[in-house]
């Protein structure tokens, strides 16, 4: 099978079944989709519809029970944990609902963490973080600990960490869920800008109506299955 190199992520007949107390829970059921490079995609659906599980499968954070997953032209389905870690480091950025910053590190140290894992030199890391922080409006906060930042600022640091390594794909799980309306809108503007300026592919899982409205493509999930998949004008 060949794949278009413009494909950012692709799934084919993917299932994820959890075994809990002797019960089989089908969190994702037979999902096949192709997300192109540079798309701004929202996965929407009620709680328990399988958004986060699908996001984890797309990011190689968990293995599918059935089916296959590709990142660009690389089949990641049967990769070892070590290979998946390498792939995540080089190609994927993550933004989590609960920010998930390391509390003992400063904002700068959190943001540069993927670069540190890649072995980028300190001066280069410093320069990239400084530029990105200015760009996303948190310049001057480099040395603050996460506990000294607002929710919006923490989520911007998390976004900076996700995009600083120039990944092909950023996966964001409810990135605006813990933010007020103003901070949420500002973060959304930032991600739209990064999508346009850097060509980064964004895939969100969200309940946020504003995010859904501004998405370039809206995929609805119900009971682990895709119920609708519509392209719309990115705003």
């Amino acid at each position, binding site marked *: 099978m060949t794949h278009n190199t413009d494909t950012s992520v692709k799934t084919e007949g993917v299932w994820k079944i959890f075994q809990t107390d002797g019960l089989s829970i089908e969190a994702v059921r037979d999902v096949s989709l192709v997300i192109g490079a540079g798309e701004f995609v929202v996965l929407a659906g009620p709680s328990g519809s399988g958004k986060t599980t699908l996001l984890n499968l797309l990011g190689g954070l968990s293995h599918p029970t059935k089916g296959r997953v590709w990142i660009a032209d690389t089949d990641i389905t049967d990769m070892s*944990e070590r290979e998946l*870690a390498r792939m995540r480091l080089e190609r994927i950025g993550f933004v989590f609902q609960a920010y998930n910053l390391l509390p003992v590190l400063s904002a700068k140290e959190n943001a540069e963490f993927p670069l540190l*894992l890649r072995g980028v030199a300190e001066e280069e890391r410093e320069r990239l973080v400084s530029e990105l922080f200015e760009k996303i409006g948190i310049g001057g906060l480099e040395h603050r600990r996460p506990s000294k930042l607002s929710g919006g600022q923490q989520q911007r640091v998390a976004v900076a960490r996700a995009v600083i390594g120039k990944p092909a794909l950023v996966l964001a799980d409810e990135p605006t869920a813990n933010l007020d309306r103003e901070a949420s809108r500002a973060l959304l503007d930032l991600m739209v800008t990064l999508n346009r300026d850097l060509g980064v592919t964004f895939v969100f899982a969200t309940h946020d109506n504003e995010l859904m409205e501004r998405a370039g493509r809206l995929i609805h999930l119900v009971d682990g299955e895709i119920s609708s998949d519509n392209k719309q004008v990115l705003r």
Partner: protein
Amino acid sequence: MVVMIGLANGMISQMINNGTGLVTGQIQIHSPQYLPDRSVYETLGSHPNDVESLLGIIERDPAVIAAAPRVFGGGLVSSGAATFPAILMGIDPAREVEVSRIAVMKEGRLPLTGSNEIALGSTLMDWLETNLNDELVLVAPAADGSLGNDLFTVVGIMESGIPEIDGSYVLLPIDVLQSLIALQPMRIHEIVAHIDDPWDAQLATDRISIELQRDGYAVDVAAWTSLRPELREYAQLASGTQWILAVIVFSMAIFGVANTMIMATFERRREFALMLALGAAPSGIIRSVLSEAFALGLLSLAAGVVLTFPILVWWHHFPLDLSAVFGGFEIVGTFVKPVLKTEYPWAMIFFTAFALLLTVVTAALYPAVRAARLAPADVLTGR
């Protein structure tokens, strides 16, 4: 643990020093046929200068601190109507004090060379109902078949704590005993050497034996480890027990530290899951946890050194003598005082430091592997 090993080492060391420091010494040189019968005729020194020459060769060995000649005889010691059998030990007072504690008097002083003076064990003194400056009669079978006897003045009382010694040993000048038992002045039965570290006795024995053979002396050189096998075996047993105890303590410590590390890594599982999600390799997580454990081990080591080293040094130089409370006790023919004295050879210190670091790193291995095998998606979504 370090203090405990230090105290055990101190006790073993005291036992060996006491066991070898009274009569046995750490190295003995005899005529090849002298042991085990201790015949009065089996002597060293067939020529007038032999003994001085032997002493010179022995004292040239780097481990030897001092050496002393001895003559032994059996006899009877009488005071009034009381008569008891005794082991007569002829000594060179100036040399003997350098090699054994039997020459350290509880009361009085050592007999002087050339004078009819003797020192007795305290128990023998009691049995004879005699005191310092009293006169006693010694009777001993002589080498020429006659019966030697003479009158002696008691000038010293010794007390080793070993009933067999305190109840039978009589010290007198070597020349006087030679005369009493009709032995030529150049003939002796034994040379005893005192060395720096008792555990080096066999090595020193081998060196001395080679040197003496090279100079044409057909003599028997024996270390305390073969002269007192029961003492050597007891010391080895005590030492082995101490190592077994150390292994048990460190094994228990591994479980304790492992439990703490498991709890610590469990509390930080979200952090590890995040690092894995961001692309940290599982092996990197293992290295990170082990490095932290190693760093904690180093800190513990530093704290341990600060806390225990002063105790080790203090109790080495100022041992706590509990004999006033508990008295003394005898182990395999050796009198041991309950003295809290530490010994801290560098090998022991390096071993315990290495064992501590090995313990914490070993204990951290399982938690590290668990942390590296976390499923990031499950942990980050709280599943």
